[in-house]
């Protein structure tokens, strides 16, 4: 059996309650994004583009859509004979079974899986971040620093730093302190939730962490602080580029709108590191005789007879005559009927906005749950 140099573990367990109805029947990483993607497509494509061909996806909440979406991993070239993508829910062993308690516990419970591939390094990722990154460059950095753990960080405006987990580092990048949402941040280097660990080291600290009954078995809260305390070598790897945690309805909407900006740092159109998405074998999009489309993204299977401005339209969406969609994200198979008006809204998949009905007020974001049949105006969120 070939040994793998590095394998990736994607934390995809979160229920993501702050995404409200978007995660009602769906794990957060499987929430649709950017017209043709689901959020997890970004990390899986990053893995594929970084030649990482062994990926475990840790999940325990509503995995049906995620399961169906990932399938055997064909989309991301992860349908491998040895390795590939594997969804890892909790399981029972001789002594019984437990649900995952925290992020570190999820990895701990799957130590056997990792040991099977016997990797040098383990890359721990979050399934709900939007970004493009070549993990190989980070691995090179990790090796160069001879680190036990490398954490990717991004510079955030110092006034926003208190919303993030902040890494305080020495000049050479070595982390001496980690502060979760500090009131008075000492630096503006926010953790991106991307870790490379030496597997042997990580194993040791996971076992230690499990022994501590007060631990909530979380990487940020428990494992990283413990590593720092015990003098392990942690380094910060500065990432420059687009990165967004789409944990709330607002940040989800913003990240979608970011794609429409002329100067968007997240380039979906370059051909080298593509973001791969499942192909649903739909017909190409059709733009009707009286349609008006501007500054928008539209994908396969859409039919547009009305007006679309500054919006993201997902597969299979129908937009009727004289309908207006503005500053909105319309998820798959939604129907905006003739004359309906949708302003600054997120319309859930399969929802139907009836003829002439208005949704949204153009100021705060209005979220229409999936499959909702909207027969009357909804002007507030």
């Amino acid at each position: 059996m070939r040994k793998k140099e590095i394998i990736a573990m994607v934390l995809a367990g979160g229920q993501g309650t702050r995404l409200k109805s978007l995660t009602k029947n769906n794990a957060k990483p499987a929430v649709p994004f950017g017209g043709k993607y689901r959020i997890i497509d970004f990390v899986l494509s990053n893995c594929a583009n970084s030649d990482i061909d062994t990926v475990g996806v840790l999940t325990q909440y509503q995995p049906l859509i995620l399961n169906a979406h990932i399938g055997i991993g064909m989309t991301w070239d992860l349908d491998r004979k040895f390795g590939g993508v594997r969804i890892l829910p909790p399981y029972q062993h001789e002594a019984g079974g437990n649900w995952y308690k925290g992020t570190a516990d999820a990895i701990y419970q799957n130590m056997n899986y990792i040991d099977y591939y016997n990797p040098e390094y383990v890359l721990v990722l979050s399934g709900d971040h939007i970004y493009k990154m070549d993990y190989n460059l980070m691995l090179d950095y990790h090796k160069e620093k001879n680190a036990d753990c490398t954490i990717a960080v991004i510079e955030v405006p110092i006034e926003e730093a208190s919303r993030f987990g902040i890494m305080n580092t020495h000049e050479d990048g070595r982390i001496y302190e980690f502060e979760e949402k500090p009131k008075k941040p000492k630096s503006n280097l926010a953790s991106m939730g991307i870790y490379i660990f030496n597997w042997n080291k990580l194993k040791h600290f996971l076992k230690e962490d499990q022994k501590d009954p007060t631990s909530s078995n979380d990487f940020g809260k428990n494992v990283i602080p413990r590593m720092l305390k015990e003098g392990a070598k942690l380094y910060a790897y500065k990432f420059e580029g687009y990165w967004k945690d789409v944990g709330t309805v607002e940040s989800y909407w913003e990240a979608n709108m970011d794609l429409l900006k002329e100067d968007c740092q997240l380039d979906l159109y370059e051909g080298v590191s593509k973001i791969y998405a499942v192909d649903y074998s739909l017909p190409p999009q059709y733009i009707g005789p009286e349609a008006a489309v501007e500054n928008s993204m539209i994908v396969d299977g859409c039919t547009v007879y009305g007006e679309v401005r500054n919006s993201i339209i997902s597969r299979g969406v129908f937009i009727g005559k004289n309908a207006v969609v503005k500053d909105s994200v319309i998820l798959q198979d939604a129907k905006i009927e003739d004359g309906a008006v949708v302003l600054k809204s997120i319309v859930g998949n399969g929802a139907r906005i009836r003829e002439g009905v208005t949704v949204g007020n153009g100021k705060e974001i209005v979220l229409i749950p999936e499959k909702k049949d909207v027969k009357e105006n909804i002007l507030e969120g």
Partner: protein
Amino acid sequence: MLRDYMGVILLNEDESNIRSLTLNRPIASIPIFGRYRVIDFVLSNMVNSGITNVGIFVERNSRSLVDHIGTGKPWDLNRKIDGLFIFNHTLKRLVQEDVNAFKYNMEYFFRSKKEKVVLSRSRMICNINLEEIAQEHERSGADVTIVYKKVNNDEMFLNCEVLNIENGKVIGVGKNLGMGDTINVSMEIFFMSKEFLIQAIYKCMQEGICSSVMEYVYKHVRNHDVRVYEFKGYLGCINSVSSYYKVSMDFLNQDVMQELCSKNGNIYTKSYDSPPTKYLNGCSITNSIIASGSIIKGLVSNSIIGRRVIIEEGAEVIDSIVFSRCIIGKNVKLKNVILDKNVIIEDDKVLIGDNKYPIVIEKGSRIHL
């Protein structure tokens, strides 16, 4: 589900009137409707009816076809048991030149557990329920069942085979020379037993008269029980540049598009992982089909745009078909034009073709002043 059938697709199709689109590909791999290739329709029809074993016989080693089909993943035909087989020799050449290669292909038929065969070409574009026909074929006990459609005799079906039908049986087969109001055009989909196919191949070899199994059946309709099944849906035939253009424009009709792309199952095609299409400020699109990954700043009207096409500001694309990865410069005007893949039209250029005989610009051309 057609569990007991193997699909056989014959790609030695007549290219004499469509040369400008088949310079480096067979008809089967001509791009169509923005995101498909011609062969996607017959392949998807077969797969949607439950066929898991498809043999494709192609005359030359067509790189574009092999690239497109790949290992058959989009059609879920990358299988260990059954799956997809590409043979680079057609029956035609086999009979006339190459008995050895033919012998090899016989092995393919013998090896399969399947007892029945659907034989088809690729150029007849439709979305058809083959299960229904198989039931009819088996119920009737016919040696061969040929699918046909009653059509108005327009140019689209010129030179196609016409069935002379009496009481559900074929009593003669002619060629459509463009006379007669309505004709029964053969859709080149044949149902038969594997045994019949093998016998027909042997006879073709022995007699040296017929160059293909379809021709053999057409010529011997009186010696065998050859029946028909009437198809009533939309049918297009990729027979010539003008029929290609006609079928493409038909696709702008939403009823035709919905029927072709989803009536009896979706049409599968190779995925290129293109991003969404981006419409910028100032663009204007009417009655058009756009595939993924394009960036549109200009005007598009009554046209079909392929994947990853760039249409710059001030450009106007009207009544035209643009294949993937073309770049259309600023203020370009195109009308009744077909641009093959990777064509670059530089700024300010004007190209206007006839609405029946559009101009075809060859793959990879660069049109400049």
